[in-house]
């Protein structure tokens, strides 16, 4: 099978799995019950998209979905850095009082920053929307058919992100300052969603997927007016964080996988 298509599918599925995992860490910790449930649903949606794309990869000769999710090391993942980032503010990240037996949850309880999770989801959903809209007309028919099924869910994800982003910065000074801080922290990673790959030209020439730079421009034209509308400053000098698409990840990706894969790796032969 065409290695360019395989690489594209891994990037899509790995992004979905990892942001789904990160967002699911907030289940039970959301700011209010309703938003907790809504945000957890979005996480489930992304896990579902990832599973569907892993299944497609499996049909193309790659290992089974569980194998791909639980038995690959960080260097084999093709997700961008944005999705793997931990939602702790920089100053608080060092101390980890242990409350229960899940260190990630403990740190979210004591130091978690909801604004980071929310702004990340907004940036990511807008990218999903741009990317999947393009892929709905992909010449690689199995992928086009699949992503058309995701449309309704992605529509809700962008509605969620836009509604929150239009209100929180305008609500209170604290809201504005926290959203601004999250945008400043995440922007370089958000640009990294569109890290160029060596397959870009091939995929775009074949009508399978537009080049990453094209998608990035479309994403900016959607996201930037929404930020400006609520008076959020866009960091213009930030350089994109690249590396994830080539399997070069930050240390957070390693700790995320050790959490996420722990149980499956304890007994690889267990039947679920």
């Amino acid at each position: 099978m065409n290695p360019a298509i395989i690489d594209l599918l891994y990037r899509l599925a790995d992004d979905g799995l990892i942001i789904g995992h990160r967002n699911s860490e907030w289940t039970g910790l959301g700011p209010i019950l309703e938003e907790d449930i809504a945000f957890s649903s979005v996480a489930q949606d992304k896990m579902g998209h990832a599973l569907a794309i892993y299944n497609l990869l499996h049909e193309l000769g790659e290992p089974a979905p569980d194998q791909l999710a639980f038995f690959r090391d960080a260097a084999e993942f093709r997700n961008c850095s944005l999705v793997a980032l931990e939602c702790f503010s920089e100053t608080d990240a060092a101390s980890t009082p242990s409350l229960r037996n899940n260190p990630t949850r403990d740190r979210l309880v004591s130091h978690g920053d909801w604004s980071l999770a929310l702004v990340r989801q907004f940036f990511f959903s807008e990218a999903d929307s741009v990317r999947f809209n393009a892929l709905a007309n992909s010449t690689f028919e199995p992928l086009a058919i699949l992503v058309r099924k995701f449309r309704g869910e992605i529509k809700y994800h962008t509605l969620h992100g836009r509604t929150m982003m239009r209100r929180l910065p305008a609500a209170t000074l604290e809201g504005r300052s926290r959203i601004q801080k999250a945008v400043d922290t995440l922007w370089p990673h958000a640009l990294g969603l569109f890290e160029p790959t060596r397959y870009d030209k091939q995929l775009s020439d074949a009508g399978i997927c537009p080049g990453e730079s094209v998608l990035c421009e479309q994403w900016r034209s959607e996201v930037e007016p929404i930020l400006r509308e609520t008076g959020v400053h866009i960091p213009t000098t930030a350089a994109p964080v690249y590396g994830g698409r080539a399997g070069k990840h930050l240390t957070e990706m390693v700790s995320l996988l050790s959490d996420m894969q722990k149980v499956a790796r304890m007994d690889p032969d267990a039947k679920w």
Partner: protein
Amino acid sequence: MTQTPEQVWEVFHQSARGEPHVHVGSVHATDADTAVLMAKEQFARRLACVNIWVVPSDAITETPYEDADMFEHGTDKSYREAFGYETTKRAKAVGDAAEL
């Protein structure tokens, strides 16, 4: 810049076009758009749904429970009830069979 207070919104759910909107519960939200956003995940993630209404609870006028006696019938009004009709009986029989 002022923080909008959260209020309660009553949620009405429609399972198919043409069906009535049915009250299914309530959500907390600062405004109508956010209420719709929350209602969708609270009440339409399992049930089939094509449309949702949200209405501020404040907009609802209710009867006091101490006046519940005004709904009672002082004399026999069973002639108003529809259960005597043959069609109603047949519809009920079909409904009961469908539930089994």
